[in-house]
């Protein structure tokens, strides 16, 4: 015994497993107690990653962004993290854990967070090379490799995960089928009618659904690699089989160490998440609570909190696990699906209200208590806009209105639940278990804006599904406290950007001071001046440096270049669609060389030249314009780039000419002034190499035309674009983009990207589709005409500037001297220039602010 203990690593708390739940447990533990010694044993070679968003790996999200944390974080938290450490057995009587590599760990408390593995049905032939599962990163890589050698893919299992897997296969370019044993899709979450509508909608999106099919064998195929043989005698050929038939808990460690395990698997736990050995806890998908395994992340997080609370606070701990709401709202293959509570109306005496709109493809069902007072469940397919409201009715057992059907009937006025009537106990964010009371408390403590509230309560930072609800809670609470939730532009104008646009148009105002004297006060500021400059440009499309507008522009717009930290500028010529000739590349290279500029390739397939002095800008642009370049508007709140992949012209997989389309689109919208910058991309096939789904306007070629995605975003607040319309011809595509952009310009607040604009737009995507596709407001023709007029009056601002001696006068550092700014100094790094640091400038013993311009500063 003595010998063993010398080799044993002692930990107060030992955790086996580092998935999302295991990681959350560490976070929760360290939030409550920084002191106790913790060791984590992780069988996988990498840290916990976000499985919820795992499929985004196929759409280009780098794996590093899916990681929940870093090894450095574990070090900072003083948690001993052992990767690649596979546990062989537990000996509860000695509180020892033995690993495959021979190491031994002792514990005071042990937490099992071993998770689950995918269930593969015992079908003969299920162990062949292209028969795969969809669970880990390695699985995804296997699927990707197999798909590259396949044309057809079948998912066995039509549940939630199965449909996500089908989406992945479709994105990989395979002809995709879903095979489900039950007579409907998503039998756990949806009723029969909802499942049928979902199947119909998914078929329309090009995935073939086979329900009521029991697979009996996977035999060699004739046309494709394998043949699925079904119990009813029918056959389906495929190259790839993906099993998604549910999960099974990883409970072997529990079994082998004598813990009580459920009949169908799962380590049995009580309300404290304790197993049959009180020193051992189990959380997440390996745990069985009241005969239930919870296959969602939120209940696993709840268990993690319960155990962290228990281990830190011991007798004073208050949290218990009391089951979890399994309601879900998600988008499967682009179809909105919501499921709340008792969807099958199994509660005795329950009544159902149904609404279907076969034209729009909406199905909604309410399940209410026998007395009609409480909401027990709901099914939403095609339109989940009412989900948040319904969920709050169900979770808080709030009394329903006299006519509950109003909650699912379209356009019946006020259906959204005012956040004010929610009780303080109402859960707003289920990922991080934030109640309305927590948010109200934060506001009471002086936190007054949405971003700070998200930061301090963590609400809406998990799946983000509650963002809209959180915003309305915050807005209403602030309003109730008398804090004005103002959309006024700034202290000089008591109007929103949209209201100012109406005033300009209705009254025909053409200058800032006209608008200020009639509708504002003071002298304006750096907020309202550029905003009104942009509005005037959107309405009249005049040259932005025309005399009355000069003082309105940010320096970047005034000097048509991007100011850098040292007061020098960078230059980005337009390279439409990322296509450029060798001759033009040489021109850019020569200019950069002549003026000693730092060169960097941008993310938008262009070339950025840094380190130009103000007075050099016209000389540089003279050379560029003479060579046929135009301004790239990298400085403006306007269209930046239309990124493209090489498309059908060269690529083996391309189905349309994405480069040609990107160039045409970039040329149509270049120079367009908007509330914020606009980025677009065109991909030549579903492999999506141009990353169109992260752009404001994204276009993906299909065999039959173009799919249009809208309101995506990268950057600080990434948002996946929404599929707006499918298989469009080029004319329809352009008219839709015209309408969307013009509607955005007319209705968005200043500095609002399309992603945020759409999220704020009442009615969201469906409303935008209605306005643009169905012309519900009767303004489509007007929007198109306005865009046409702007496109027709485009002129390159740099060309106009070079032709205007008055405007050129501004490009001098001093109006009374030819000297240059001596504070702009460069040093060499990696064979290019970079701005000198303050220390380096001192070393040169330069006097700030002025020194004569000498040869060394213009190479």
């Amino acid at each position: 015994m003595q010998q063993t203990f010398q080799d044993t690593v002692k930990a107060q708390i030992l955790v086996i497993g580092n998935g999302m739940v295991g990681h959350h447990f560490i976070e929760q533990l360290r939030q409550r107690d920084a002191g106790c010694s913790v060791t984590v044993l992780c069988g996988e070679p990498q840290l916990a990653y976000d499985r919820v968003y795992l499929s985004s790996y196929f759409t280009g999200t780098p794996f590093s962004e899916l990681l929940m944390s870093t090894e450095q974080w574990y070090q900072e938290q003083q948690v001993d993290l052992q990767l690649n450490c596979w546990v062989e057995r537990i000996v509860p009587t000695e509180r020892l854990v033995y690993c495959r590599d021979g190491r031994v760990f002792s514990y005071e408390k042990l937490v099992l967070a071993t998770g689950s593995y995918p269930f593969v049905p015992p079908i003969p032939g299920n162990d062949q090379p292209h028969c795969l599962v969809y669970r880990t990163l390695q699985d995804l890589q296997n699927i990707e490799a197999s798909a590259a050698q396949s044309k057809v893919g079948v998912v066995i299992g039509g549940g939630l995960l199965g449909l996500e897997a089908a989406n992945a296969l479709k994105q990989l370019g395979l002809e995709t089928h879903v095979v489900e044993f039950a007579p409907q899709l998503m039998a756990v979450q949806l009723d029969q009618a909802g499942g049928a509508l979902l199947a119909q909608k998914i078929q329309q999106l090009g995935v073939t659904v086979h329900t009521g099919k029991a697979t009996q064998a996977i035999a060699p195929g004739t046309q494709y690699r394998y043949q699925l043989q079904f119990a009813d005698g029918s056959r389906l050929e495929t190259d790839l089989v993906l099993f998604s038939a549910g999960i099974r808990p990883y409970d072997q460690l529990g079994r082998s160490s004598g813990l009580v395990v459920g009949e169908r698997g799962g380590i049995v736990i009580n309300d404290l998440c304790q197993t049959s050995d009180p020193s051992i806890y189990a959380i997440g998908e390996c745990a069985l609570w009241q005969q239930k395994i919870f296959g969602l992340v939120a209940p696993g997080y709840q268990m993690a909190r319960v155990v962290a609370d228990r281990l830190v606070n011991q007798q004073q701990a208050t949290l218990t696990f009391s089951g979890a709401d399994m309601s879900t709202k998600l988008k499967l293959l682009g179809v909105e699906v919501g499921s709340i509570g008792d969807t099958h109306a199994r509660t005795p005496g329950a009544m159902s209200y149904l609404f279907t709109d076969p034209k729009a493809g909406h199905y909604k069902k309410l399940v209410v208590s026998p007395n009609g007072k409480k909401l027990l469940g709901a099914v939403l397919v095609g339109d989940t806009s009412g989900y948040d409201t319904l969920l709050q009715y169900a979770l808080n057992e709030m009394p329903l209105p006299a006519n509950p059907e109003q909650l699912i009937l379209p356009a019946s006025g006020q259906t959204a639940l005012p956040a004010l009537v929610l009780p303080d106990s109402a859960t707003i964010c289920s990922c991080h278990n934030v109640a309305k009371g927590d948010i109200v408390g934060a506001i009471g403590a002086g936190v007054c804006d949405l971003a700070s509230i998200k930061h301090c309560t963590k609400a809406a930072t998990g799946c983000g599904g509650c963002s809209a609800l959180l915003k309305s809670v915050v807005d209403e609470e602030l309003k109730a406290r008398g804090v004005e939730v103002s959309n006024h532009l700034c202290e000089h104008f008591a109007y929103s950007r949209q209201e100012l646009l109406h005033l300009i148009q209705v009254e025909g105002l053409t200058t800032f001071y006209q608008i200020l004297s009639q509708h504002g006060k003071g002298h304006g500021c750096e907020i309202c001046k550029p905003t009104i400059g942009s509005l005037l440009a959107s309405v009249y499309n005049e040259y932005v440096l025309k005399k009355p507008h000069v003082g309105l522009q940010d320096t970047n717009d005034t000097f048509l270049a991007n100011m850098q930290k040292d007061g020098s500028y960078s230059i980005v010529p337009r390279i439409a669609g990322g296509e450029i000739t060798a001759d033009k590349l040489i021109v850019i290279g020569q200019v950069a060389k002549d003026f000693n500029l730092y060169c960097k390739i941008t993310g938008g397939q262009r070339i950025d030249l840094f380190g130009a002095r103000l007075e050099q800008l016209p000389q540089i642009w003279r050379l560029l314009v003479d060579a046929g370049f135009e301004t790239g508007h990298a400085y403006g709140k306007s269209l930046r780039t239309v990124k493209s992949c090489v498309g059908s012209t060269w690529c083996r997989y391309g189905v349309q000419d994405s480069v040609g389309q990107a160039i045409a689109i970039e040329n149509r919208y270049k120079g367009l002034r908007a509330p914020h910058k606009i980025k677009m991309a065109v991909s030549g096939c579903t492999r999506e190499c141009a990353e169109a789904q992260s752009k404001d306007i994204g276009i993906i070629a299909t065999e039959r035309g173009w799919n249009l995605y809208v309101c995506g975003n990268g950057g600080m607040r990434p948002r996946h674009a929404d599929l707006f319309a499918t298989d469009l011809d080029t004319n329809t595509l352009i008219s839709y983009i015209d309408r969307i952009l013009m509607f955005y310009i007319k209705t968005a607040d200043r500095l609002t990207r399309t992603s945020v604009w759409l999220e704020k737009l009442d009615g969201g995507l469906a409303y935008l589709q209605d306005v643009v596709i169905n012309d519900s407001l009767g303004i489509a023709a007007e929007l198109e005409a306005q865009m046409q007029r702007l496109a027709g009056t485009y002129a390159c601002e740099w060309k106009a500037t070079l032709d205007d001696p008055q405007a050129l006068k501004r490009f001098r550092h001093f109006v009374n001297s030819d000297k240059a700014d001596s504070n702009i100094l460069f040093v060499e790094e990696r064979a290019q220039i970079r701005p000198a640091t303050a220390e380096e400038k001192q070393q040169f013993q330069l006097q700030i602010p002025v020194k004569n311009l000498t040869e060394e500063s213009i190479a």
Partner: protein
Amino acid sequence: MSFQEICSLDDLVENSGVCVLVAEQQVALFWLRPDDSGGTGELFAVGNFDPVGGANVLSRGILGSVGDKLVVASPLYKQHFCLRTGQCLQDPSLSVPVYPVMLSHHKVLIGSQPVAVDAVAA
């Protein structure tokens, strides 16, 4: 205090700024002239060096007002500097020098030394 003739009014841009060299110092010169004021408007001169960003850029900032103070907003990080006192509104420990400026026969004259802020504020 000696005044130096710096440039002509035509060298300035209405409701915007330019940079001038005054006794080897960089000075941002602003011409505030709302359209309906009728007259020649008002001139302001402050140091061109932005103490927050550490670059000579204030002449390229946007003119405006915060409450009753006339200000220029730095184009780098948007701090406001009062045109009359030079003080930074966001960080009162920072300020830029303020120069006396006047208009004579369409010529702009600027004092070669910055003035004490209190005198200007008065």
